[in-house]
């Protein structure tokens, strides 16, 4: 089970409050898109889900279990690093800047997690990695280093790498923002296929077309709060709040 619940999540960066009480639920198998202007806190919120960012108060539950923290008497303390790593290994993350390991080929990037973390035998990991790379349309690029691949190809390898750990949940942090316009489609296609397979996904994006087509729920964030959330068509076509209207009028 991979339902994600944000319960009154607050976060401040040295006195600056960037998340001001987020309450939001992404059900298992759903695709949620977080939209909003830069600096609205959507990437920070996403990064709290796998504890790349700490929270100041509030709780995030993944699959009904608290992440990053544990109950200690009447308060929460940061969980043991080992537990955090274990939880992270079940949550795939895709970054805006791909972050493929530059000293490894595409195949090695995708094999690394299973081999080193899950202790999958090399031959099996390689077979699975080849299968994943074929799934994202890169069967003929397995031996290439990241520097030899286009942005779109790198991002698809990054998705395959995240999938190699057989995650219950996938986080996408503006996965197409660093891509040339003609390469955006190939990455979105892979993400759509993933959504069709029933993967639970939280996607920070500026691709309104993708949000409208694929998302089950869209949340518009501004100034550290979720201004409105709900059905993508409602939010994108008939926004209720002035801030949402102002934002959408600029990006659509």
């Amino acid at each position, binding site marked *: 089970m991979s339902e994600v619940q944000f319960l009154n999540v607050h976060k401040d960066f040295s006195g600056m409050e960037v998340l001001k009480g987020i309450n939001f639920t992404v059900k298992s198998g759903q695709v949620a898109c977080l939209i909003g202007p830069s600096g609205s806190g959507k990437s920070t919120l996403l990064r709290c889900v796998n504890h*790349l960012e700490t929270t100041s108060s509030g709780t995030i539950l993944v699959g009904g279990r608290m992440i990053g923290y544990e109950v200690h008497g009447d308060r929460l303390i940061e969980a043991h*690093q080992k537990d955090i790593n274990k939880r*992270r*290994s079940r949550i795939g993350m895709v970054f805006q800047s791909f972050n493929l390991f530059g*000293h490894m080929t595409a195949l090695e990037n995708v094999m*690394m*997690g299973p081999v080193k973390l899950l202790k999958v035998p090399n031959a099996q990991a390689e077979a699975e990695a080849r299968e994943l790379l074929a799934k994202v349309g890169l069967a003929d690029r397995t031996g290439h280093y990241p520097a030899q691949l286009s942005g779109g190809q790198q991002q698809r390898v990054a998705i395959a790498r995240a999938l190699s750990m057989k995650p219950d949940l996938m986080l996408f942090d503006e996965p197409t923002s660093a891509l040339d316009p003609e390469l955006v489609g190939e990455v979105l296609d892979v993400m759509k296929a993933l959504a069709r397979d029933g993967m639970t996904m939280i996607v920070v994006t500026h691709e309104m077309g993708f949000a409208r087509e694929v998302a089950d729920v869209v949340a518009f964030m501004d100034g550290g709060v979720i201004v409105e959330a709900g059905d993508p068509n409602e939010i994108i076509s008939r926004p209720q709040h002035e801030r949402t209207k102002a934002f959408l009028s600029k990006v659509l």
Partner: protein
Amino acid sequence: MTVSELPITAEARHDFADLASRPVLKRKRPGQLIAMVVVGLFAVMGAYVIVTNPGFGWPIVAKYLLDIRILNGLLTTIELTVIAMVLGLVIGLVIAVMRMSDNALLRGVAGAYIWFFRGTPLMVQMLFWGFAAVLFPTIGIGIPGGPMLVEWNTNDVLPLFVAGILGLGLNEGAYMAEIVRAGLMGVPAGQSEASHAMGFSRMETLRHVVIPQAMKIILPPVGNETISMLKTTSLVIVIGVGDLLYNAQQIYARNLQQIPLLIVASLWYILLTTILSLVQARIEKRYSRGNTIQARKA
């Protein structure tokens, strides 16, 4: 008529077709020729002096080049270089990781280490290690202020060779720490972040992701440090370790052929640094895996 004087008019358009068919020549650069002549003259003068001045004592150089004492010293120099560099690298890696730790105490200890070993002359550190027995006549394990459980005579466990290694290696560690730190910081933060997001611990991330990519930043300066170390080992003469230079000195102290024996030592030093430079180039090539330049060749 030079090119710039060509009439560029509509009537002369056919001339452009003519221009396009002409071969391109390199412009003559007489300055280069003059420089060659000057440098050549200096080279001839230098060679003449070296060959004709009997003070260089080339026959004596030839006689001692393969002398067993010189070769023994050479071996000691190589041993000192290798062991001190390995020690320096290990210390450098540990201190660099400590310096980047979240733990303020570890950061402080690492900072103090670098501060001390970079802040005092290597020659002084070397002398300290050489005279360690004066400061601590015996070393051992025991209860502070109480009885000793095991005890050794410092001069027994710390022969001069080991003192030399410590002097060179501990000092090198401080410099290496800064080189390693620069390398670790040169790997984009996104690499560690991606690794952490997959569930790798900090140590695993360092080992599998950061260090392999830091290597190509670290290696060129490490090569320089190794070449520099080869020559710096000659400082062990202040505590009387029998390295290449020390043994050469011992020989000329008796036969008074200072210049030829210094040439013997120099020839060996320059041969070794040349070999090290070649090794460095090969290792760097190996660690450039995934580089764009190599990528284009593939």
